[in-house]
C-alpha cells in the first residue's frame, strides 16, 4: 500500500512508548501495534485526532504517501 505509517518515528521523536500512547488515547496496544506495523486497512478520524493531540503533531507527521514502484 502506498500509505506508510510513520508512527514509530514520531514516538521516537517524542520519546514515548507505544504502551504509554495506548494509555493516553484509550486504544488497545494490540490495535496500536496493528496500526504501527501497517496491517490496518484504515484509521478513524477520532483515532488520528487523539494520536495527533497526544504526540503534538500533524496527520502528515504520522502518515506518508509513497507511490508503489513498478
Amino acid at each position, binding site marked *: 500500500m502506498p500509505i506508510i505509517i510513520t508512527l514509530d518515528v514520531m514516538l521516537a521523536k517524542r520519546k514515548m512508548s507505544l504502551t504509554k500512547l495506548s494509555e493516553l488515547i484509550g486504544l488497545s496496544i494490540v490495535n496500536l501495534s496493528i496500526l504501527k506495523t501497517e496491517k490496518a486497512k*484504515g*484509521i478513524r478520524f477520532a483515532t488520528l485526532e487523539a494520536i495527533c493531540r497526544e504526540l503534538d503533531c500533524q496527520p502528515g507527521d504520522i502518515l506518508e504517501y509513497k507511490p508503489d514502484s513498478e
Partner: protein
Amino acid sequence: MKGNRRLINIAFAVCQVLFVLAVIITTVKLGRFVAGLFLPEMLDKNISCSVPFDLPNVPVNLISGKVAQISINNISASIESKEILPSLPYINGLLNLLWSGVILYFIYVAKVLIAGVKERNPFSMRLFVKLKYASLFSLVVGVLFVAKSLMIFMFIENNVDYPGLKEVSNAYLSGMVTGQVVRYMLLPLVVFILAEIFRQGALLKEEQESII
C-alpha cells in the same frame, strides 16, 4: 453469562450426538440402498395387483413407494403393485439417502456454528460457504422430490388403467404442489438467507477489525 456457556455446551453435545446418529442412519440407508441396487430381488416382492372395489373414477389420494391409496368418501383402501412404477423403490431409496445426507450436513453445519459461538467468533466466511452449500444441496434434493412426485402423477395418469381407477384427484395434485414446495423449497431459502446474514456479519467483522 455462565448459564449461556452451559447452554452452548449442551447444544454442542446434543449436536454431536445427533451427528453420530445421523451418520449411523445414513450409513444404514446407504447399505440398504446398495444392497437393493445389487440385489433387486430383495425389493421386488410379488405383490397382488387387485383393486379392492370396483367403482368408476376413484381418486388417488396418496402414492408412496409401491402403494397407491385410494378413497371414496370415508372409505379408503390401498392398491399395492410393483407395476405402478417398477423403479420407484430405487428412486425412493436414493432420495431418502440424499435427504439423510442433507440432514447429516445440516447437523455438521450446526456443529460448526455452535463451535464458532463457543469461541466467540460465529461470523466467518467458512460458515457462509458451508451454509450456502447446505442450502444448495437441500434445494437440489427438494427439486428431485418434487420431480419424483410429478413423475408419479404423470405416470399414474397415463399408465395405470385398473378397472375403476382412471382419475387422479386434483386435491392430490394441489396438495402435492403446495405441500412439497413449502416442505422442500422453504428450508433452502431460509438457509440461504441465514448464509447471507453470516456473510454480511463476516464482512462487517473483517472491516471492523482492520480499521483502527
